[in-house]
């Protein structure tokens, strides 16, 4: 391989590595920053999977380039991840739906405790008026 080819290949591999690590970072950052579970589900299952795919592609090229592993075996992991990531995401979404995560009230924070206000989002009992009538009678 000519030196120019090697430099081009090295730049290509470095770009793949940087793009992959950027997507992994974006996926994990969305896991931290987004407000509720169904929004958080998107980041790691899509962005991180794509990022790891880029890193594995860079690994195939790197090992072929250095000569430490001539076969592209990392393709196995890539294919496996790309098949299983949507299945896992679907099951996690079903788990969250079965727990009705989206209709739960938020956990009280320290600021709410300091304010001393009633932050409960629990709706009133349907028979609350009847109970009040019986008590007042």
């Amino acid at each position, binding site marked *: 391989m000519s030196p120019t080819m090697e430099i081009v290949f090295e730049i290509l591999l470095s770009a793949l590595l940087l793009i992959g690590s950027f997507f992994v970072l974006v996926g994990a950052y969305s896991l931290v920053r987004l407000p509720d579970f169904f929004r958080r589900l998107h980041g790691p299952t899509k962005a*991180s*999977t794509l990022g790891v795919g880029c890193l594995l592609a860079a690994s195939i090229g790197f090992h072929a380039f250095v000569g430490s592993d001539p076969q592209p075996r990392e393709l196995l*992991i890539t294919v496996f991840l790309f098949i299983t990531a949507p299945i896992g995401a679907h099951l996690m979404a079903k788990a969250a739906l*079965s727990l009705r995560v989206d209709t739960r009230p938020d956990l009280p924070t320290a600021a709410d405790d300091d304010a001393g206000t009633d932050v409960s989002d629990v709706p009133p009992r349907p028979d609350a008026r009847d109970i009040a009538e019986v008590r007042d009678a």
Partner: protein
Amino acid sequence: MSGFDIGGMRLIEIALLVAAWSVGLSMLMAVWRLLRGPTVPDRILALDTLNTTAIAALVLLGMYLRTAVYFEAALVIAMLGFVSTVVLSKYVIRRDIVE
């Protein structure tokens, strides 16, 4: 492998280090979500993210040490990670794993 130097370091070495730092930071963020919650599916999702980033970290380690022995470990982590995600979600849905 000839060189492409930037400030005394090879370009690919710099890229490897940057990638390793970002993957480590991603693992820390996933651990934060794992500890914080607030719901069970959030923790399952954080564990799934940790699995994915662990594969990335192992692949980067293999590239850094110029060896291919970490491939099998990464493959096993990928398979066990998928199975554990499915089993945990299944347990949350049905409160039972083997029906």
